[in-house]
């Protein structure tokens, strides 16, 4: 299992025929999870442990030297808070509405981070 698989899950959720809000919520969550796991791996933190919890990964990302950081890290920094809050809303705020447009945006932003990572590997 790799972070890319979470992005695939997000894409699958968004592409569900006759999709409903539960699919948009799932897509939003998977998009954020994909970025979290990608960044955690890049900064050398294990997200399965306390040392690699959300806060630790976020702090490590914020502390990364912007000038020298790979492009995907810069993009992850840009979109982290946006994806994180969208994911928390999707996961917990059942009274709040999560629209298809918001879910598509989360997936698109996560895709940009992954595309930058893929470009950096070539």
């Amino acid at each position, binding site marked *: 299992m790799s972070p890319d698989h979470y992005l695939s899950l997000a894409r699958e959720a968004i592409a569900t025929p006759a999709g409903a809000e539960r699919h948009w919520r799932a897509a939003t969550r998977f998009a954020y999870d994909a970025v979290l796991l990608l960044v955690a791996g890049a900064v050398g933190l294990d997200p399965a442990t306390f040392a690699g919890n*959300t*806060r630790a990964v976020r702090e490590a990302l914020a502390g990364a030297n*912007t000038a020298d950081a790979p492009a995907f890290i810069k993009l992850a*920094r*840009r*979109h*982290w*808070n*946006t994806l*994180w*809050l*969208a994911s*928390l809303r999707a996961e917990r705020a059942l009274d709040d509405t999560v*629209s298809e*447009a*918001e879910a*598509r*945006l989360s997936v*698109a*932003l996560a895709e*940009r981070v992954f595309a930058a990572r893929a470009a950096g590997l070539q």
Partner: protein
Amino acid sequence: MARLALDPFTPEQPLKVAQQYVSLIHNVLERRNELDTAQVRPVQTALELIANRVVAEVRYDAERLMYLAERAAADGFAVHEQLIEVAAEHEAEIKRLGNDVIREYKALARKLNMPPKIAAVVREVTEAAEQFQDEWLTIIRQMRHRALAIGRRRTPEVNLVTAGELYLAALAELDEMPDSVGLTPRIAGDMIVYEMVVPVAADLMADTPRLAALIEALHDRVEHMAPQLCGSLALRFTPLAVAGPDVA
């Protein structure tokens, strides 16, 4: 203004423990002549366990609020006075408990005749109640002192308020300046993250590639002005409400 205590930290929980201590002292005094002290021990032990757990939780809640206030101050939001308000609420209850309740029972116990074993139990329970009260007070005083220290600290010149202004300026540059933009504090895990809510036209909202490109352009502009602030806010786009037809 950001509300710090989004999860309220009220004196309710420690107060319940204090009430249980008072109730135990009351019962022991009331049944002092026929009470078997062996019956009191398990209650005392159980209460001690509950008190220890509640002190740990009070400490955790206070630490969490102090941490949030520190972060909010660093982000440019002066919310330390909310900590002082919370501390005052707790201190009022602690003072009432110490001065009006425990002291009264101690005075009463001195006046009553009771077997030495019962007197020893009353003393032990009263000491445990006072120790609980002291630990609670120590945490709350620490919170007030920290709030005062945060209040004396200089707010950094470049902070999230600046970030909000930069993102607004970037929106204006990109001709997407909405009529109203909100900066809302949100609890994210154990942190506060500020979210800028931007209403946009429905056609832009539905066009994901165009919206994603707009977001990148916003970040580009902010990164150019202040790289450390880029991405410091969460952005949320919502469809602009369309005015309905006038009904005569």
